[in-house]
């Protein structure tokens, strides 16, 4: 089972500039943890100390917002998880 994980560039300094990776897991949370086991320094970039997703990140699962309860959303082989910064302005 392989899931594509794409990170917002604000996080890539925590993953040695890797923005896209293949991960494994049954939920979005498991997939993010899989990325953390590869890049331990990414943990504070993804998660608050209590384990919740960082406030200013949104998770798109196959292009659609995974909110609410993003981390427990089930994923399947071939899915794409995209972590994006909640931004606006100009």
């Amino acid at each position: 089972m392989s899931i594509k994980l794409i990170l917002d560039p604000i996080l890539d300094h925590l993953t040695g500039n890797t923005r896209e990776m293949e991960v494994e897991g049954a939920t979005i949370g498991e997939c993010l943890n899989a990325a953390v086991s590869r890049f331990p320094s990414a943990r504070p970039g993804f998660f608050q100390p209590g384990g919740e997703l960082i406030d200013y990140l949104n998770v798109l699962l196959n292009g659609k917002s995974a909110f609410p309860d993003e981390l427990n959303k089930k994923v399947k082989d071939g899915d794409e998880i995209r972590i994006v910064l909640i931004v606006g302005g100009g």
Partner: protein
Amino acid sequence: MNGWAGQILRVYLTEGKIVKEPLSEEMRLKYIGGRGANSKVLFDELKPGIDALGPENIFCVGVGPLNGTAFPASSRWTVSSKSAVNEGLSDGNGGGDFSTELKFAGYDQMIFYGRSPKPVYLYINDKHVELRDASKVWGKGTHQTNALLAQELREPELRVMCIGQAGENQVRVSKIMTNITRAGGKGGVSAVMGSKNLKAIAVRGTGSVKIAKPKEFHQAVKKAYGKIMASPFYNMFRQEGSLFLIKRYHELGSLPTRNLQAGYFEGWEKLTSEAFEKQFAVKHKGCSACPISCAHYFQVKDPKYGVYSESNEYGTTYPLGPKLGIDNLPAILHMQGICDDLGLDTHACGNTVAFAMECWQRGLLTLKDTDGLDLSWGNADAIIKLLPRIAYRQGFGDVLADGSEKSAQKIPGSQICLKTVKGVEVSALFLGKGMNFVQGLGYATATRGADHLRGGVQMYATGSRRLKETLGVEGAAATIKNPRSIEGKGVFLGLDQKISALFNSLNICAWAVGGLFGGLEPDEIAELYSLATGENSSGDDLLTTGERIYNIEKMIQLRAGFRRKDDTLPPNFLKMEETPRGPTGIDKTEFDNMLSQYYEYMGWDYDGIPKAETLVRLGLPDYAAGYRKHA
């Protein structure tokens, strides 16, 4: 007086008379300064029905109590007048260090009336204030104007606010400049300055700003700097500047492409902050008192597009790049240099050129109409030729000089290409799959016409305590993270707009505000404001002030005749479409529900008119009884 300088200038250009007056307590405490003080003057003093480019219009420059202090990013100034684009409100907010100099000279606001019989500039050197002949700089670009005035006045430290040739020629897609590249002015306020024969305001100030509790203030400032410096967002923003938005908006399907016909631009990778930094950035640059320093000096060495300038931003890149189908970064930087020197607004001018290019795409314009310029998407070299023609109102340039709505009246069948709200072009983003509906609501209801800075688009309330208190923690998270649901959007936008009115009146930078990324929240701003001014105010007090200001602006809009039907979006945004790359736009009925939700939160009636009880609550009882008379 602490914080404020305590003095304003009224300048009667027709008579050549200057009057100094104390800043009133009502103005200080109920409207703060900057945008709030300017809007209040316009609402009270403008006669209904006047010509925006006639001598009866009033032009205001305002700064706030925190300008000239160490408050983070307290570098901004606000210029305001009746709009020359839609008869409502025009204003602009820019950075640099002009505001600091004006405070050091001892002034909070300047109000200009009438029209000078010949071109003049206002020279302020502390207490000395005079109108001087501007014939040496009239007809000159902003670079030369700065240099010539510094030379004439023998003041190397002079700070200049001026217009370029575009403003002189009353081109409505123009802007007012300070520090050569710091710009502001939506709705033609620069043309208003030109209509008054006022070329520049040149300031030298050697005073300082008094702080009520200096020790505590500086400790609180240190804490605020520490918070900003520790934020991963600001760490990234310092490196990339607002260009960081290019790739994110592209990924979210919201990069405004080819006059907002799409949200993806195939050439986006050539325009990113990385591409800019690798090839053209020289070194960092920031406005005064700013720990963020988001700008860069840049240089293009290729002689065809050669330019040395600063402050390449998203706001200069999207309207001269994707919006025109241009992926040639050196050409975009070159065009930015042209716009800054001529005093053309990259947003309004770029968006109007985008309108013309869509007219070309649809066969509504030909070489015969455009004086031989091929306006095909991506043709940067044609646009480089077109920009000066707009500034000088030459040939086809004159057709575009007043903005897309006025141009559309001269190009048969071109209404379909208009992407405006209340006559003002939609700026900054396309309502693509990843964008939040609150951003559409923000464009529809902003008090200057379509606007990415008044709230909604920039989303200042994300992460704010008040959003969570009003909607509940889950509700607040949902309205932010469920972009394409209407739930909570009325509260979200209302809060955003109050926050924007507040920080524009204090004249602190939009980028330093907002809870989610480690920017300053209203409670922190209030603490610093209280320590600086000695006027004890809570975050709630200041937000009520922001709301009061927003309502004053709303009444200016109502006076111009705008009602609920005008709080709307361009037709291609008000249509939900499923595209292969995800949904775009918003369903009309959903939009209408969202608008009602927003009016209710703001205490306005079905037509968007503030209810009497709302105005009384905001300390505006006189207006509650009588403002309809003005409308």
